[in-house]
């Protein structure tokens, strides 16, 4: 990655000395910014032609109780035209954790700031709707502060459930119809079980709406802080549970980079193949459930059959169908099954006919066209400003893919394309996913043709990977390493790192802070569907109720990842 931003863009001269301090020795360019100038710096970073940070990836907090300025608000920025990254850190005191809201610069800041408020109590001045987002309305305190007990619960009773008061714009008043407020979800089949939309209807048109989430917030980040580094892996499975292996890879890669180790070639090869199979599964679920929500039930059966077959492969590798926990820091949890290649090749034959069938049934289907073409369309510019990544962004004409922009594993050694469509609507989101399934199959085929690399499935480093069982019983040294790893776990050197993989929904980032102990100090996941879903209210306003259903399906919002 180039380091252009460390060469100090010209607008820096305009700020008072000491308000922006570059931090040395980081994984990516990092500036410590005073909160007084944050809003102006953010605007300059977005608009200045020498920086062009058009994508706000993530906003999170970190709590350091021992420091004089206890909190740190951390922003991760990305520049699509320049393929550069920048981290901004804003120190805040416990007495006055206020900072300006960045919604005027990046709309993506909206929900991220609400989350930081919920988890840490940061107060974003100028935020139009700064209230809790993940925890419930009877909750007290800010759970990710270090002094919050991880098991301290609060009871929510029915009278305290949030009831939004929707502001209806005056110019949409229509005397023909009576206004009606409806509540959709969270227990509603089309809301995928965990989302809630309150919509004000004028006839069948939605004139105002509010989205409520948090019905599956299960404290992933707090749980990470109370478990050892390896124990975090099963929790990552349950982020995006439709493609859990990709989460394993994302987390393990970040920790491996912090440790300075490289997984063996066999593990990298298998990770690439299994990540692509996971991506296929995820796209199958997304497209299948979108179509079933639109009434095209047959395709749901067609999409689920390849999934079952891929489950078979994952089960042979890891023993689990869905939540595989197959990745380990340093490689894989166990060796590949002997028939791994044969199974993969069989899958390559089985999957394409199902996708062909669906495309023949649906691509030119009149009902599907009427439901999907032009529905919830978003322009490339808006999508970027809202922080979109992944297939949904690529359906809007922006070909950003982490696998190309910053290749990891073996993606730069195979030939493949990033499918891009330009409609930005539900129909193109569906087509992008089908096209990506074919690209994934092509990647897998090329890797299989190359042959499985010889060697171990996990690094041969006793500080990271358990020694073989045989050696533990017969060699004193191995037994000691085994004992140390089981009792203390891996020790990751102090530092911080943001690393990312291309999840099935977009850029899946892990921002990890280590204090050198056997447990992570802070793990923040950058969930790709979180900024995407924050756009939902905007997407459905002006549309009809039935559009809400297909829109939600096409965005592929996975609650486990959205709310963690």
């Amino acid at each position, binding site marked *: 990655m180039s380091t252009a931003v460390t060469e100090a863009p010209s607008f820096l001269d305009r700020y008072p000395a000491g308000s922006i301090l570059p931090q040395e020795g980081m994984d990516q360019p990092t500036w410590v910014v005073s909160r007084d100038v944050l809003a102006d710096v953010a605007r300059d970073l977005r608009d200045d032609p020498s920086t062009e940070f058009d994508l706000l990836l993530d906003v999170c907090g970190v709590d350091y109780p021992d420091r004089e300025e206890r909190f740190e608000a951390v922003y991760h920025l990305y520049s699509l035209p320049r393929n550069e990254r920048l981290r901004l850190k804003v120190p805040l005191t416990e007495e006055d954790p206020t900072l300006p809201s960045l919604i005027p610069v990046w709309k993506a800041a909206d929900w991220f700031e609400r989350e930081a408020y919920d988890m840490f109590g940061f107060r974003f001045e100028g935020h139009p709707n700064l209230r809790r987002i*993940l*925890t*419930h309305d009877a*909750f007290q305190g800010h*759970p990710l502060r270090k002094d*919050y*007990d*991880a*098991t*301290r*619960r*609060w*009871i*929510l*009773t*029915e009278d305290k*459930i949030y009831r939004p008061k929707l502001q209806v714009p005056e110019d949409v008043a229509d005397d023909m119809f009576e206004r009606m407020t409806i509540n959709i979800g*969270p*227990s*509603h*089949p089309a809301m995928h*079980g*965990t989302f809630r939309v309150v919509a004000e209807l004028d006839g069948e048109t939605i004139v105002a709406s509010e989205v409520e989430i*948090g*019905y*599956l*917030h*299960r*404290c992933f980040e*707090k*749980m990470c802080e109370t478990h050892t580094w390896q124990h975090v892996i*099963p*929790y990552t*499975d*349950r982020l995006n*549970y*439709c493609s859990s292996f990709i989460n394993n890879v994302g987390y393990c890669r970040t920790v491996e980079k912090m440790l300075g180790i490289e997984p063996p070639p066999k593990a990298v090869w298998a990770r690439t193949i299994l990540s692509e199979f996971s991506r296929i599964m995820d796209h199958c*679920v997304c497209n299948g459930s979108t179509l079933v929500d639109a009434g095209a039930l047959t395709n*749901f*059966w067609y999409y*689920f*059959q390849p*999934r*079952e077959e891929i*489950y078979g492969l994952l089960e042979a590798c890891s023993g689990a*169908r*869905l*939540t595989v926990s197959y990745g380990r820091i340093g490689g894989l949890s166990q060796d590949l099954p002997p028939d791994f290649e044969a199974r993969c090749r069989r899958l390559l034959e089985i999957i394409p006919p199902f996708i062909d069938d669906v495309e023949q049934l649906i691509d030119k289907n009149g009902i599907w066209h009427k439901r999907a073409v032009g529905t919830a369309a978003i322009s490339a510019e808006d999508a970027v400003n809202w922080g979109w990544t992944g297939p949904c962004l690529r359906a809007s004409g922006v070909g950003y893919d982490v696998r190309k922009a910053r290749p990891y594993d073996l993606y730069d050694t195979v030939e493949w394309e990033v499918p891009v469509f330009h409609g930005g609507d539900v129909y193109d989101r569906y087509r992008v996913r089908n096209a990506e399934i074919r690209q994934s199959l092509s990647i897998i085929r090329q890797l299989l043709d190359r042959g499985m690399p010889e060697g171990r499935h996990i690094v041969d480093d006793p500080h990271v990977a358990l020694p073989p069982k045989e050696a533990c019983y017969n060699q004193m040294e191995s037994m000691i390493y085994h004992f140390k790893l089981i009792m203390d776990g891996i020790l990751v050197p102090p530092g911080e790192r943001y690393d990312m993989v291309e999840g099935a929904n977009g850029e899946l980032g892990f921002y990890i802070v280590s204090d050198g102990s056997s447990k992570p100090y802070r793990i923040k996941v950058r969930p790709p569907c979180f900024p995407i879903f924050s756009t939902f209210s905007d997407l459905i306003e002006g549309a009809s109720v039935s559009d809400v259903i297909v829109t939600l399906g096409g965005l592929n919002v996975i*609650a*486990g990842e959205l709310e963690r």
Partner: protein
Amino acid sequence: MSLKVLDQGETQGAKVAHTGESWLTTTFDKVEDWAQRHSFWPFPFGTACCAIEFMSSVSSHYDMARFGSEVVRFSPRQSDLLIVAGTINDKMAPVLKKIFDQMAEPKWVVSMGACACSGGFYRAYHVMQGIDEIIPVDVYVPGCPPTPEGLMYGIFQLKEKVLRDRKKYARESQTRVQEEPAAAAG
């Protein structure tokens, strides 16, 4: 109450008495149980990973419809089996309670997966430590998530229970007494 033909497999537990070549007598309760146990109308309260496995259970490969759990209904008024698939947190708890209360008797609850059974490995500030804090549970299916075979086995167990358990209309006392989590956490 009499039935003309009842095949051998279905008579177990019904204690039928043959009175003629093609007639048998039984009680209304027995026939009601027999009918209910073979035609659950599940309400899938799916929130998380378990919901994906529930989808696998009802889709083509496993096809739970083979065992008479055919009609998945998303209205609590139309269903008699609540399958809670996935983590229930404190924000969701009032919703789950309301859905359960809206279902008409007789009704049953299957708790699918470790999270619904006990909170699973989320011993955390926002996660309910088992749905039996607020609603009674008939069958607990372990696993994280359970395989579709596991869920089906759970439903078979429930079928047995429907025949065995005549207390289905009086279940108020079965809920685990809810402790004040504030006190529990200290």
